[in-house]
């Protein structure tokens, strides 16, 4: 993906650029709001990583300007202002996702990649497939190697989220947001417990485990 990072903090910008490049993306940097807007308008990016507080022009104003031009590039807003209503404000201004500081790079990468795929103009899917796992979203059934697997509704949604991002890291925070709609971080390992139950159902009886824990980051469904 071609990604534009608009961030005034050089260290943070460099860190993000390096990480994204290592993950195989092409990254451009812009150090202030005006430059960011100019660059975003000039080139066709697959995703934008936008800091909220920027010199010359703040992130939300840049985003509104971009959206009023009909630009639908997915935008991930980064901010030190992590309150839920500010997230809502950011999302209303046209942001696709919101990440508050401090964030771990894996979180950022997972979200940017999820966002990039979401913008693919694929038709509404009713079936998901990842390796030998098959999920029917209408019939609410899951099969592995043709064998039916019975899942609780929440486990079903957990697996759906992992399958939609198959092969990529999905963080605990992302799972909490997407599966439970909670925007706070629990102090305990609740997600791990749910993952291990899901793992028991989809991996236990089979030779190759699919659901992997990525240390310090989250989980990945290996295809």
């Amino acid at each position: 993906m071609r990604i534009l990072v608009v961030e005034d903090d050089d260290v943070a910008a460099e860190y993000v650029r390096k990480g994204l490049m290592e993950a195989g993306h092409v990254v451009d940097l812009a150090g202030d709001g005006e430059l960011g807007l100019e660059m975003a308008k000039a080139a066709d990016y697959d995703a934008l990583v936008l800091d909220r507080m920027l010199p010359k022009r703040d992130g939300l104003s840049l985003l509104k300007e971009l959206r009023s031009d009909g630009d639908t590039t997915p935008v991930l807003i980064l901010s030190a202002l992590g309150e839920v209503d500010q997230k809502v404000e950011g999302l209303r201004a046209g942001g696709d996702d919101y990440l508050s500081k401090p964030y771990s790079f894996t979180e950022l990468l997972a979200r940017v990649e999820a966002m990039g795929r979401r913008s693919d103009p694929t038709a509404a899917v009713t079936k998901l497939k990842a390796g030998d796992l098959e999920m029917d979203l209408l019939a609410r059934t899951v099969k592995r190697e043709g064998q039916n697997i019975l899942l609780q509704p929440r486990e079903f949604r957990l697996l759906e989220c992992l399958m939609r991002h198959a092969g990529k890291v999905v963080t605990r925070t992302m799972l909490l947001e997407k599966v439970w709609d909670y925007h706070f971080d629990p102090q305990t390992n609740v997600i791990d417990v749910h993952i291990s139950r899901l793992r028991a159902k989809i991996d236990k009886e089979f030779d190759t485990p699919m659901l992997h824990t990525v240390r310090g980051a989250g989980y990945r469904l290996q295809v």
Partner: protein
Amino acid sequence: MFASLKRLFKNTIFRLSMIAAALFAVSSLIVLGYIYFATVVSDLNRVDKTMELEIDELTKIYETLGPVVLNQIIFDRALPKGASNVGNNTFYVFEYYDEEGNVNGGGNLPAKRFFTDPEKIPFWRKIPGLKSEKTREFEYAVTTISGDNKQTRRARGRLKEFLPSGAKLFIARDVENIMAASEKVTRALLISVAMAIILGLVSGIYMSSRFARRIAAFNKLATDVRAGDLKQRVPRDESGDELDVLAEHLNAMLDHIDTLMVAMRYAGDSIAHDLRSPLTRLHTRLATAGSEVKNKVARKALYEASNDAGELLRTFEGVLRIARLEAGERREMLVPLDPSVVLEDIAELYEPSCEDAGLDFALEIEGKHTIRADRGLVSQAISNLVENAIKYTPSGGAITVRLRKIRSGRSEISITDTGPGIPPNERDRVKERFVRLEESRTEPGSGLGLALVDAVADLHQAKFELSDGPGGEESQMPGLRAALIFPRYKRTK
């Protein structure tokens, strides 16, 4: 109706105007009393005095000339002086015993049947003045010349007994005119007092409702401001009266507070941004360095330092979050919510964790509930309480999340565990920021969990109560019962 009447009596202006009306009524009654005494009583005294003098005169005649002469004189005086002097009637009766012992004498009192029994005279027609054995009052009827309508008039008389002969002399005078005049004055004054009270009541209601409306504007403002809406102002009528001046000052004060709040929030946000950015950089740099370093010990140290920086940032964020909650900024975002759904979600999230920790988990929902709440915040508060319960309850214990109705229709969410509990004298302290009990120092955590629950409760105008769990005070493991009591849901805000 009764309630609004009660409210009316609580109104200061209404009470003041009622007091004014009452004072007016009392002073009118005093004036009335004075007029009554100055006219009626003195007139009646004069009548009494005249009768007294006449009795003295007639007594002298009786004593010097004897009863026969007196009877003759009485007969003369009792003769009618013409029909026109109805109001000026004087009545005489003289009775004595002649030599044979027969009752003799007479007078001009109206026939007995025209008398009203003194017992039956209604109190308002009674004639004031001293009662004594010698005075008598009575009513009599006359038929006026102009028509045949009967008129009942009042008279007042004095009785004199001559001892040892037993002769009796009675003189009475018509006092109807005096009484009628006084009653006219009294009636007029009573009506004016009644009118004063009615006018006082009406103007009291009018002024008090006007005043109440203006005070209501102040109260609404205070409620709004307390709810976090600093943009509200009292509407002014520019009249320059005390309330208007108060409104002006209040508005100016709020403007000032608003300015300070904005400045503070700006400072807070700036600090958040300014401190978080370098901290984030520190966190990032340490992580980056960690991934580059080959030395295992150094790498571990760098990762741990990076995690510490992350922990620091999270604590910082927690403090800011609580501060924002306490400012009540999000109160207008509260919406009607069924708490049982929130609890079912939380239960579903934590049940597996409880099972892994060897804890029995139960969710008990009693009745239908609606509260005004923010789902995210309530979820986080309950989540904090459940996580605490899991963290401190030893394996084999139980955690119960319960939703029920308590007094006056309020909804109570409680989380009960069978852990070590919190000593009663520490229960208020643990709700403060960064307060951690000695026993839990070794556990991970920032000491912000219960402070956040408290702030969330405050925002919802809910009560956050900590009490003993099922174990009881004396036991080693009393357990903890944490309860959030939400105010009764009101449809209109």
